[in-house]
């Protein structure tokens, strides 16, 4: 009886092996080919994740040294910067603001988004890039924080020039309005927490 069961089990295993082995083998080969392709394309493009990480670290330090402590905290905690607009009637070519204060959100490698902080109304997207055509490592793309710093410098130094250089689009073309609404909510929370913290420190230092 035991012998018969063992023989049956062996037969079943052999049959299963025959049926499954081709698909298992194909999957293994596909996996190996995929890994080789990723490695090849990385080598061809000169992409080195370690170098990119170090580049981003340097870029973050440079950004930190240029913006104020609040802006740095905003970027560190939320991943974007807010810059207040300075043109009297709002961003050129964009929606008019009738004198209401407006601001921009600066994301890495995404369009600059203009909005009205009082109402949260989105005004427009300004698509702008800073391509380095010398492509030292095969890519014209600056590290994320350098891209944000380039936008910040261009906006704070010469807002009109940057806005006229950029391609203007209606909100929502590239940056999801829902994401912006969430980010504005997060920014509000972040600012409130900062104010509370400042209040607590003020009380502590006064006592």
């Amino acid at each position, binding site marked *: 009886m035991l012998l018969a069961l063992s023989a049956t089990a062996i037969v079943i295993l052999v049959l299963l092996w025959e049926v499954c082995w081709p698909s298992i083998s194909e999957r293994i080969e596909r996996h190996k080919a995929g890994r080789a392709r990723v490695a090849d394309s990385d080598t061809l493009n*000169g992409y*080195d994740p370690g*170098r*990119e990480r*170090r*580049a*981003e*670290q*340097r*870029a973050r*330090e*440079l950004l930190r*040294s*240029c*913006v*104020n402590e609040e*802006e740095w905290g905003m970027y560190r905690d939320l991943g974007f910067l807010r810059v207040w607009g300075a043109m009297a009637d709002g961003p050129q070519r964009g929606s008019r603001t009738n004198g209401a204060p407006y601001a921009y959100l600066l994301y890495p490698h995404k*369009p600059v988004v203009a909005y009205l902080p009082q109402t949260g109304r989105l005004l427009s997207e300004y*698509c*702008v*890039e*800073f*391509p*380095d*055509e*010398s*492509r*030292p*490592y*095969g*890519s*014209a*793309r*600056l*590290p994320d924080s*350098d891209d944000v*710093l*380039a936008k*910040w*410098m*261009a906006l*704070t*130094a*010469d807002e009109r*020039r*940057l806005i006229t*250089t*950029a*391609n203007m689009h209606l909100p929502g073309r590239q940056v999801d309005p829902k994401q912006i609404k969430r980010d504005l909510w997060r920014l509000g929370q972040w600012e409130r927490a900062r104010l509370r913290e400042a209040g607590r420190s003020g009380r502590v230092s006064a006592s």
Partner: protein
Amino acid sequence: MAGSMRFLRMKPGHGEILVAAGDVDVPEEERELIEAFRRQLDEGLWAAVPTTGSGGRRQAQMVRHFDEIPRDADRVIFFPRAAGGS
């Protein structure tokens, strides 16, 4: 009194690199800085000086000529010029 000034350039895959450094009060070093400044602009880069405005507000000042760089600036940052994106 002015002093040492550094020229930094943003680079893809690297972060910033030091392009030149020198003391603007030393004529020979100032000349080298001027040449380095021209080279970067000839390569199509923009140049900005991070500054602190009234009330401690941080901002940047774009410079198109060496003379426009504040004498007391400690660094000038060169970055690729802006282009309209898609």
